[in-house]
Structure formats: structure tokens, C-alpha cells
């Protein structure tokens, strides 16, 4: 499978920071030609965010930026300049998709709103990913993954019942719900356009995909009047179900006991201590009643074992158990991720070798599997000349003139 599946699709990419950039990366890694419009005047904040290669700051050295922008091209285009806007329009004329995740009004300010674009590119697929959608009383509110996690209910639902809401510890909606939903909608619109010739406007409010994922919790309130409160790692359908300390510094294991067989296997593997080998614990009901005692008793045993060894012993007996991996573990010691070649080293012109995530799925035709990404994140404006020559069909003199006028900065 040499040719990537989205080859031939061009994206004029105005996205930045987290969710937008990851959306277009999903397309770029599978062959779409994604041209990221950047400017030193309006730098993607991720280019200015740690971590940096060797800890040395630089607009081409951020690992956060690189991982979200593999397989893309970058051009410098000053959208505050009318000639910059004209070039953006030319890029859009040749594109299948326009993507942005600005607050509503910014693209319009550049003369690049949907209503402007359909005048010269009637079949465009135009993806907007503002925080709360293009219209409504709070449409111009701003935020990031953390505040979106708060607004959607995810943060209040995650954490210990008697502590402040913990959330996920990350800008979670930026990394999975928003990019996956936006990419899916865009791909569906591309399929529809292929069949009908029609493009369309796609409005993603970056709160709504995460709320859609929380459907059962929303229903528990809307239908039953029950406001679910966070309950740590407990689960109503399995006991024990938790994270237990292991030998070492900040080492833990996650264990889910789904049935009575798994329970008796767990008790065996933990050496059948009196604290666990109780008759009353042999039923799900008994375990649920005594979950706190059981959690303490498991912890007393597990802290004497290595997480890795205990995981293997439990898995050998068919118990769902997994060592809590940290960043170093998933990269360096997880045999499965390494078997799947999840970590892709790519040579970046300034950073040298850096690690990228492969997409978390493999496409194969039964024999050959697509390997991607193949190209690292671009330097700021790395492809400006190339795009000016090949897409804008400008001469070297014209490029020099535009550079002098500050259009390509």
C-alpha cells in the first residue's frame, strides 16, 4: 500500500494549537496535502510551548507542536495584509477543505469566512471548530481543553468524591473527542461531495463531542433526575475495580474483577491471605458491600509486588490487570506498543531525531500495512517558496517582492 488513501485531497489549514491541528494531522498522516498557514506575526502558541528539543526554546523545537503537525506543509502568510488574504483565497480555490479553530469572526475579519469563500469556491468543505459554535449567546467565549473539560461535565465527574474535581489532568477534549469528531465529519462531507458535487459548512462546537460521549450520564439526569457524582475508580458493575500500590516509587496496578472466577484467581495470586479469602467476598454482592475493606486488603498485598510481575501473574490467570504506565514506560518498556511500532522516529531538520505517535490503528489490505507518519512537522514557513511557485504560480521576482512587502512573514 504505497499510495496513501487520502492522496489528492488538499486542505487549506488555518488551525492552530491543539484540537484543530490534530484534526488536520489525522488527514495529513493518511495522504491529504495539508498546507498550514502560519505567520511569525501570529505564531501558533504550540510553537512557543515546552517541551523543546534539549530544553532549548525555539519556534522549530517544540515537541508538542511537532507531534500535532506531522506530514504537513507550512507557509508563511500574513493574513492582516490584503495581498496575504488574496493568496489565501488562491490557496482555497485549489483546495477541497478549509479548516480553522478560531473564535467566530476571525476568518470573516480576513475576508475568509464561509460566506466569502463560497462566492469563489462553491463546493468547498468548510470546517469551523470554535469553542462553542458559530452562533448563540456564548459563541464568542474562548477556552482550551482544560476549560472545555470543565464546561462539559467531564471534570466534575472525574476524581475522588470528597476532593475537588480532578478531571483528566490534561486538555483531553483537544486530543481525542474534538479531532476525531471533526475529522469524521470532514471525511463524511468529502464522501458526500464525491457523490453529489456539493460542499458544505461544518460547525463543530468544541464542547459538544465530549458531551456526546457522556450520553449515559446526561440521560441519568434528564430521565432519572440523578446527578452523578465522581466516585474515584469505582465501577458499579465490578468489585474490586481500582488502582493499587505496588513496590517502587509511585508504582501502581489497575485491576478489574468482572466475575467470581476472576475474584478467586486474584485471591490465589495474592497468596490467599485471610484478609481476602473470606466466604462473604465470594459473591459480587458481598464484595460490593465490603469494597473498602477489600481495597485495603489488596493494597496491603500488592505493595509488596512489582506492578509488572503482578500484572503478568494476574493475566496468566485471566484477571484484567494492567501496570499503570507513565510516559517513560509506554515509550521504553511496553512490549505491545513496541511490537505495533507505535513510536515513529523521524528526522526533523532542526530537532534531529524525535519521536512521533503513529495513528492508533493500522490499515492493511490483508498483506501490506500502511506505515505513517513518514514526514516530520514543518519548520515555520518551510514550504513558502514551494507553494508560491507551484500553487500560486509566482516567479522568483514576485516572491521576492511579496517578501519585501511583508506578505510572506
Amino acid at each position, binding site marked *: 500500500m504505497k499510495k496513501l488513501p*487520502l492522496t489528492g485531497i488538499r486542505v487549506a489549514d488555518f488551525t492552530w494549537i491543539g484540537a484543530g491541528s490534530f484534526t488536520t494531522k489525522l488527514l495529513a498522516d493518511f495522504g491529504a496535502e495539508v498546507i498550514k498557514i502560519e505567520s511569525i506575526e501570529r505564531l501558533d502558541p504550540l510553537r512557543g510551548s515546552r517541551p523543546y528539543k534539549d530544553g532549548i526554546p525555539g519556534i522549530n523545537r517544540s515537541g508538542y507542536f511537532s507531534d500535532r503537525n506531522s506530514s504537513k506543509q507550512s507557509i508563511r502568510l500574513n493574513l492582516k495584509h490584503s495581498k496575504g488574504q488574496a493568496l489565501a483565497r488562491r490557496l482555497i480555490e485549489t483546495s477541497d477543505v478549509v479548516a480553522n479553530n478560531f473564535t467566530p469572526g476571525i476568518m470573516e475579519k480576513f475576508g475568509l469566512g464561509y460566506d466569502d469563500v463560497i462566492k469563489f469556491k462553491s463546493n468547498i468543505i468548510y470546517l469551523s471548530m470554535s469553542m462553542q459554535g458559530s452562533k448563540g449567546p456564548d459563541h464568542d467565549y474562548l477556552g482550551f481543553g482544560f476549560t472545555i473539560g470543565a464546561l462539559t461535565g467531564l471534570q466534575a465527574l472525574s476524581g475522588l468524591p470528597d476532593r475537588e474535581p480532578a478531571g483528566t489532568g490534561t486538555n483531553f477534549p483537544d486530543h481525542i473527542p474534538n479531532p476525531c469528531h471533526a475529522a469524521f465529519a470532514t471525511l463524511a462531507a468529502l464522501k458526500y461531495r464525491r457523490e453529489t458535487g456539493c460542499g458544505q459548512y461544518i460547525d463543530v462546537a468544541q464542547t459538544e463531542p465530549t458531551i456526546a460521549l*457522556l450520553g*449515559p450520564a446526561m440521560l441519568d439526569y434528564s430521565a432519572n433526575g440523578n446527578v452523578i457524582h465522581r466516585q*474515584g475508580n469505582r465501577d458499579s458493575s465490578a468489585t474490586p475495580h481500582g488502582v493499587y500500590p505496588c513496590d517502587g516509587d509511585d508504582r501502581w496496578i489497575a485491576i478489574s474483577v468482572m466475575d467470581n472466577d476472576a475474584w478467586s484467581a486474584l485471591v490465589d495470586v495474592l497468596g490467599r491471605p485471610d484478609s481476602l479469602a473470606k466466604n462473604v467476598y465470594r459473591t459480587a454482592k458481598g464484595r460490593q458491600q465490603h469494597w473498602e475493606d477489600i481495597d485495603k486488603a489488596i493494597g496491603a498485598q500488592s505493595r509488596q509486588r512489582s506492578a509488572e510481575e503482578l500484572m503478568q501473574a494476574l493475566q496468566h490467570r485471566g484477571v484484567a490487570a494492567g501496570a499503570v504506565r*507513565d510516559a517513560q514506560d509506554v515509550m521504553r518498556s511496553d512490549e*505491545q506498543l513496541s511490537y505495533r511500532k507505535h513510536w515513529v522516529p523521524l528526522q526533523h531538520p532542526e530537532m534531529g531525531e524525535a519521536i512521533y505517535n503513529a495513528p492508533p490503528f493500522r490499515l492493511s489490505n490483508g498483506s501490506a500495512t500502511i506505515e505513517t507518519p513518514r514526514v516530520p512537522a514543518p519548520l515555520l514557513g518551510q514550504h513558502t517558496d514551494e507553494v508560491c511557485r507551484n500553487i500560486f504560480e509566482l516567479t522568483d521576482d514576485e516572491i521576492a517582492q511579496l517578501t519585501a512587502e511583508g506578505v510572506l512573514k
Partner: protein
Amino acid sequence: MFRNNEYGNHPDMPAGALRGVKVLDMSGLAGQYCGKMFADLGADVILIEPLRGSKVRSEGPFLDERVHPEYSLPFIYFNAGKRSVCIDLDHADGQEVFLDLVAKADVLIESEKPGVMASRALGYEELSKRKPDLIMTSITPFGQSGPYAQYECSDLVALAMGGFLSLGGYPDSQPIAAYGNQAYLAASQFAAVASMIALLSAADECRGTHIDVSIQECVVMAMENAIQFYDLEGTVRKRDAGVQRLAGMGVFKCVDGEVYLMAGGISSSRFWENTVNWLVESGIDAANVLRDSKWQNQDFLATVEAKATFAEIFGPFARSRTKDTLYHEGQSRRIPICPINTTKDVLENRQLNHRGFFVELLHQESGKSLTVPGAPYQLAKTPWRIARPSPKTGQHTSEILAELGYDSAAQRALIKTGAIA
């Protein structure tokens, strides 16, 4: 706008973007949201259940707290828009029916353990002989092969093995999972994207694809910049709930709950200045100390001293206001601040209601109308919609078999042998 409380084809409502796409969904918790994404954009999604019904039907919470296969809220929510057929895939005659379905399908979503489909002679190799351009999307905890391929898993275990769990929770607690089967849902979402990529490419080249989705690997994608922090700077990120991440970034208590504030730490933003002005103009003179240039330095913002100073100033301000006041006042000053909403708050949110986000879904068994999250994306020409209520167990078995050409005598025979229900 179109409302979704009328099923079937609203005369004025255009078709979905995926009309004509045929999807078979035989997955469980890890895949049913993927099937839902297809159904809500207009694909014909058939849920294949075992004779006794999908295992998801035993997942709580339950409607009216009634533990019953037709009352599981996760089942109702994730399967609205699909039709249900009950087939025993371990029965030879059931397998024949399944192959007939595959012959007409574009996408098959499954989440059996690796090797199970092949042991039924229903693996990708066999199915692609029957339907050469089939897209088979297989969702498993760790992937189709490899050292952990046969490991037992749960959502919590996947969150642990994918590293995301290490970032959740308080520094002095055990790691704490994100709520709501986020590992399974991550797999569903990536599976949907992967299936759409394959579908676009299949239209081009008329070829089939086997998609191997690893739930663990999907979870890794949630690790934000933690991987790069280790790769490039050699540091391992830890969980940090309950404390400000940087001065001006974190959870603050208020009259009726908490808010999340991101005043500090976003490069080249005016959020800090806006926040200081807000405080000073609200009569908090002490906030003027925050104007010193050192507050622009992220290394300083990371210090205990900076966090304590900020908390002393912003804490009392927040505690005397409601989350709604803080949200709207802060946002009107271009500050990223949001209430930490409960599910009740979310259902009552004015912006979501203005957008008509929540829609009504009929529950067939009770006749109740349920309020559920609606369109996660608005496609202007091909609106998202829930086309039909969540199916009862095997509700469409007869209809679907008839479409395959089984007459009622043939159907009765299959029911008698226990192949279908």
C-alpha cells in the same frame, strides 16, 4: 432548524452525508459509539446481537433504575438509530446468515478477541473473499497480535496500560481514571475515523481494508505532551489535580461550586493582563502586584510562591461569587474561565440550548421521551439526526432476513435451529 423528535424521513430534511452506506455493528462497549457515528449521519447500521442480546444491555445506569435489557441507558444511547438482528455466530446456519449480511455491507465493526472471528471462519481473509471491498474494523484491547494480544482488559486497565491514567488524580492519591469508559470511547472514535478513511479510499480503488484498532494505543493519544517531555527533555509528567498547574491556572472554589481558570501559562496571550484588570477594577488593589514582569515568566509561575500569592488574591474574589458570574464576567473580558459543570448544569446550559443541542429520543418499551445529547457536529447540507429509536432485542430480525431473501418459512426454520432470534 430541524428537530429530531420525529422519526423517519422528515419531508423537508435532507438525507445524511452517509446515506447508502451499509454498516454491520457486532461490537460491544468499545465499538457501539463508532456505529452510532455512522448511523447518525445516515448510514444503515445493523446491530448484530447474540440471541440473548448485547452485553451492553446489562450496563447501568438504567432508565427508572429498572435493571432490564431494554432499560440500559448506555445501550439506549449508543444504539439509537440502528436496527437489531439476533444471530448466533457460533451456529453454522447463523454464520450463513451473517455471510449474506456481509455480502451487502460496506463496513463491519467487531470487537471479538483476536482469533475468534477466524476460528468461526469469519476472519478478514474469509470475509474479503465474500466481499472483496469490505472494510472490517476490528477493535481489541491491544491489537490483533503481539505479546499482550490475549490479555484481559477493562476500560480502567486500558487507561493504565496506555499511560493516560498516570496523568489523572491528585499527587497524594492513587492515579484516578477519567469518567465514563473513555478508553472504549477513544477506540470507537478512532475506529470511526479509520473506517471513513478506508471508505473514501475504497470508493477510489475498489479494495477492501482490515483495520486493526488497539484500545491501548488509542489511550496513548490522550497523553498530551507527556511523551515529548520524556523524549526531548527527559522528564516524566505526573498527575497534579488539586493544585494550580501554574499560578493562575487551575480550579478555584466559588459560592456554588468551582471554576477552572487559565489566566497564566498560555504563551503570547493577554489573559494575564485581562485577569489583573478584572481584579483591580473589582476593587482588589492587592492584585496590582501581579503586574510585575516576573508574572510573564512561566518558570516563575511554576513556583510554590507564585501559586500561593495568586491564590491569596484570586481565592477570596472567587469564593464570593457564583460560577455563573465568574464565567460570564471573565469571558466578557476575554479570559478563558469556565464553570465546572455538573450534568444538571450541562443540560441547562444556555448556549447548548440555543443551539438545540439536546434532542428527544423515544424509548419504545416505556413510551417515554428521553432528552439526549444531539449533534456533535452540524453539517449544514446533510444534518445529523437520530433516525429511529434504540432497537428492542432482535426487533428487526424478520425485516432484515426478508431483505436478504429469507421467506417466513426459512426464517422459522432458522429460529427453530437456534441460529437466529
